[in-house]
């Protein structure tokens, strides 16, 4: 099993071990019996395994210590992580402040954390990197203050400082929704006329050449046929256990049938494969 050249180091090992065995193992006295020269390699290793189980785990030099030829091909490109804005720098909402893997920094005041833990600004202001031992003992936070000399963390019981960031404009009246007939192919002109092509209107509703080479309505319209015709279903009565029982039985029957069909198919397939 082992290559012949592998045996060379093993033999060296044997030679080193023999005196040890001789001294400790009196009953197995003769070294010639213990290590006959003619012993084939696998038996030697198995014997060694029995006495020194750890020895069999040795990785020999042939694979691992060859040194990697293309180390740099496995070294990925840098991901350009780290701080994008320094403390005290001015940022606007959405401005990325810190890119990171995991939460090295947490989003403090007026900041938010993105999907990949990126810290970005939620308000315009000046970046602050700070610790807040009252909130958490060992988390580092990134926050934004509104003034250039502002300080973070803010005192625990002070009212929070917020900005409105809104302007007052006259309120627009609510426009009622226009008809559904209005689409990009159908339009109402100002003078009250409706411009549309007949085909465009019928395209959605009428019969058309559909997959399967037949003129028919769309599937969803077929599904709504009952609704259009005004057919109403009898409401399901929970207390009608007899109906429920019949339905359940029918379903179970159908399931059993399908199962048996499936099994038949499988069995026939198997028979084919066997042949």
């Amino acid at each position, binding site marked *: 099993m082992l290559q012949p050249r592998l045996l060379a180091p093993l033999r060296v090992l044997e030679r080193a071990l023999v005196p040890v065995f001789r001294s400790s193992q009196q009953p197995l006295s003769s070294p010639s019996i213990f290590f006959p020269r003619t012993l084939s390699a696998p038996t030697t290793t198995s014997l060694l395994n029995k006495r020194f189980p750890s020895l069999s785990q040795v990785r020999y030099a042939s694979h691992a210590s060859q040194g990697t030829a293309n180390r740099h091909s496995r070294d990925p490109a840098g991901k350009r992580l780290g701080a994008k804005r320094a403390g005290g720098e001015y940022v606007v909402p959405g401005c990325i402040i810190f890119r990171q893997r995991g939460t090295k920094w947490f989003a403090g005041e007026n900041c938010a954390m993105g999907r990949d833990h990126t810290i970005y600004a939620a308000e315009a202001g000046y970046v602050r990197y700070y610790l807040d031992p009252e909130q958490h003992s060992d988390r580092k936070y990134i926050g934004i203050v509104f003034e250039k000399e502002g300080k973070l963390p803010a005192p625990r019981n002070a009212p929070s400082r917020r900005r409105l960031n809104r302007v007052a404009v006259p309120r627009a009246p609510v426009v009622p929704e226009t008809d559904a007939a209005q689409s990009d192919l159908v339009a109402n002109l100002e003078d009250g006329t409706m411009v549309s092509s007949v085909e465009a209107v019928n395209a959605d509703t009428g019969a058309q050449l559909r997959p399967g080479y037949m003129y028919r309505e769309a599937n969803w319209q077929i599904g709504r046929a*009952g609704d259009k015709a005004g057919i*109403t*279903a009898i*409401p*399901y009565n929970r207390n009608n256990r007899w109906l429920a029982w*019949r339905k359940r*039985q029918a379903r*179970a*029957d159908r399931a059993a049938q399908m199962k048996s069909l499936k099994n038949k198919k499988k069995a026939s397939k198997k028979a084919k494969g066997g042949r």
Partner: protein
Amino acid sequence: MRPLSPVLASLANVFRIPISQTPARPMINRICNETVKSPTTGPVTSAIQQSARPFSTTNALLKRKGGGPRGDRRITLIRYFLWHPLTPRPLRFSRTRYLRHWTIHRAWQLYQAQQRREQQLELQRQWQSMQSACEELRTGAGDGGKLFRKSMIKTGVFRDLVPIEYGRLQTESPAKEGWNHEWKRPEKR
């Protein structure tokens, strides 16, 4: 499968409904689907019922390929196994019976607390009387506390007086191995 009740069986016979054997444990994905569907269809159908009930009662979302909103799988499984017919039903008491149970439980707890307290007090009493005796020996024996000091020397207490094997807490039940008849006092050096 449980056998059908005679009434149902006769009805099925009359209406020519074949009675088939359903599996004892329904397939799990079927159950999952049912449990997922049942809460979602409920409000929808009821909402429709107020207006004109349409032809189809199935939610459009449910009919689509992906299925409706799937609940948490763990919750579905918990519900499935909790309400499976082979799961024993929870223990339910009537109001009075629960109150009786509670009364007995409280009384038992009270009794145990009282017992614990008694034991504690007894231990305290023993310790205090021992301490007062020692104090008496120290001050009232008239030898300047020599006897007390001698008595406080603990060297060789267990070796010379009582075998160490006996210096254990007295227990209510015998030891596992019983009496050791071979035991001899170790030779004094």
